[in-house]
């Protein structure tokens, strides 16, 4: 289950040449999902896997508090798929990290990443870490005893993969094809987003009823904030006393304020990777808000975060042609 030979030797050379101090990748676990792992020595490299089942949240380990407290891990190599390189671009454009601190191993021809929850929902009987491959529009799960299941790709992959526009890495220092060039077929990218469209179709009272039922369940554990590679403020204002934007109590008003402020701080930066929703212990549909805002800024301002490593922040600039609320109101 270890890395292909070519990639394995390349990563070891990176250590050997002193180009990097550590390599960030995914390793299999006992269950049908992967876990982020920071390899500090060449030997640990062989524990990595490229299985579509093992696609944990890697990039948070670049900007998290631990990363800031452990500068020795840089320069760091990361095995990054297309969507992850888009997030890297956004981090570079915000000077969260310098480009020279990260050696990007671009994983090209990415067929998608399997959502462990969706997989275990469809195959409750699954045990251990099976061998899983994505061939075209199908996911094939195999065990020693042979093929266990063949399921539809769009049913199993992460939400971000269903809408993915970046099957190829945007930036890379080294490129490795996950699927051979010969049998690479561009996966189908789905435009409709039933979750968001359902809410858009509602009238305000229904919408609030839906979100009220969700936000009441929030326990303010900050998992969503801590899982987001873009939330790396020293002293987050959602926790600050003076001035106090959000009070400590866990109730609907404060929870709503908390989520609204968090989303407003991510508008124009978030790449809708969905890690906040994945990390939420009470399964709040946070991804809906993120994808709604990503669609909005694209539709209104033609902005897609993470495409230009030196891009300006959406809310720091303006364009005279902005079609906005005021323009419509004034008509």
């Amino acid at each position: 289950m270890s890395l292909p030979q070519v990639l394995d030797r390349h990563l070891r050379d990176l250590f050997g040449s002193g180009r990097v101090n550590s390599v960030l990748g995914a390793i299999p676990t006992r269950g049908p999902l992967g876990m982020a792992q920071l390899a500090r020595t060449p030997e640990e490299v062989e524990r990595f896997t490229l299985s579509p089942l093992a696609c944990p949240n890697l990039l948070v380990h670049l900007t998290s508090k631990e990363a800031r407290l452990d500068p020795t891990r840089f320069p760091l190599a990361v095995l990054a798929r297309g969507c992850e390189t888009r997030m890297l671009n956004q981090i570079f454009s915000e000077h969260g990290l310098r480009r020279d601190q990260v050696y990007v191993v671009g994983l090209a021809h990415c067929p998608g990443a399997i959502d462990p929850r969706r997989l275990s929902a469809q195959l409750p009987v699954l045990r251990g870490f099976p061998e899983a491959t994505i061939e075209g529009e199908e996911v094939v799960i195999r065990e020693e005893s042979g093929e266990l299941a063949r399921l539809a790709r769009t049913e199993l992959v992460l939400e971000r993969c269903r809408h993915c526009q970046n099957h190829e890495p945007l930036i890379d220092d080294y490129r490795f094809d996950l699927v051979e060039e010969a049998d690479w077929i561009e996966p189908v990218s789905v435009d409709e987003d039933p979750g968001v469209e359902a809410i858009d179709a509602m009238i305000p009272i229904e919408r609030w009823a839906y979100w009220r039922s969700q936000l009441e369940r929030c326990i303010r554990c900050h998992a969503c904030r801590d899982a987001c590679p873009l939330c790396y403020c020293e002293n987050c204002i959602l926790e600050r006393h003076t001035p106090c934007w959000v009070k400590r109590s866990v109730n609907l008003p404060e929870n709503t304020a908390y989520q609204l402020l968090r989303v407003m701080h991510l508008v124009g930066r978030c790449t809708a990777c969905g890690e906040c929703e994945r990390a939420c212990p009470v399964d709040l549909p946070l991804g809906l808000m993120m994808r709604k805002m990503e669609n909005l800024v694209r539709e209104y301002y033609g902005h897609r975060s993470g495409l230009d490593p030196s891009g300006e922040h959406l809310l720091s600039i303006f364009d005279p042609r902005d079609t906005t609320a005021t323009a419509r109101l004034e008509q």
Partner: protein
Amino acid sequence: MLIGDRKQQSYEPRIVAFLCNWCAYAGADLAGTQRLSYPPNVRVIRLMCSGRVDPGFIIEAFLEGADGVIVAGCHPGECHYEHGNRLAERRMTTLQHLLGFIGIEQARVRLAWVSAAEGRKFAQLIETTVEEVRALGPFQQFPRRAP
């Protein structure tokens, strides 16, 4: 206590308005010197520029009991600080859509351009906003204190 409990009387919407010092605030003053009249539901906070308005202020206003919020600045191209109003436009538009997505009627947050010479327009802005918010009823979504 002087502050009557609003709910007993007929519902009078509470509107918080962030006015930019050079244009909207001066427009409001002009409405005063012209002795126009408009409903007293609006409470004004003076800022140097509409670009200073943080989306968090709007959320705080709703939390603290406001039923509607107005952000008024200079007309595009006339901002005293060149483009503060253009920045406010993007911030307020994105906030309006986020609030709308979770069920806050977009008419509760209103962005408008009022120049220092438009006293009458300011008075009309207040009247229409108060009427629209009155039609929407009190803000019940997530006030800190029950309305």
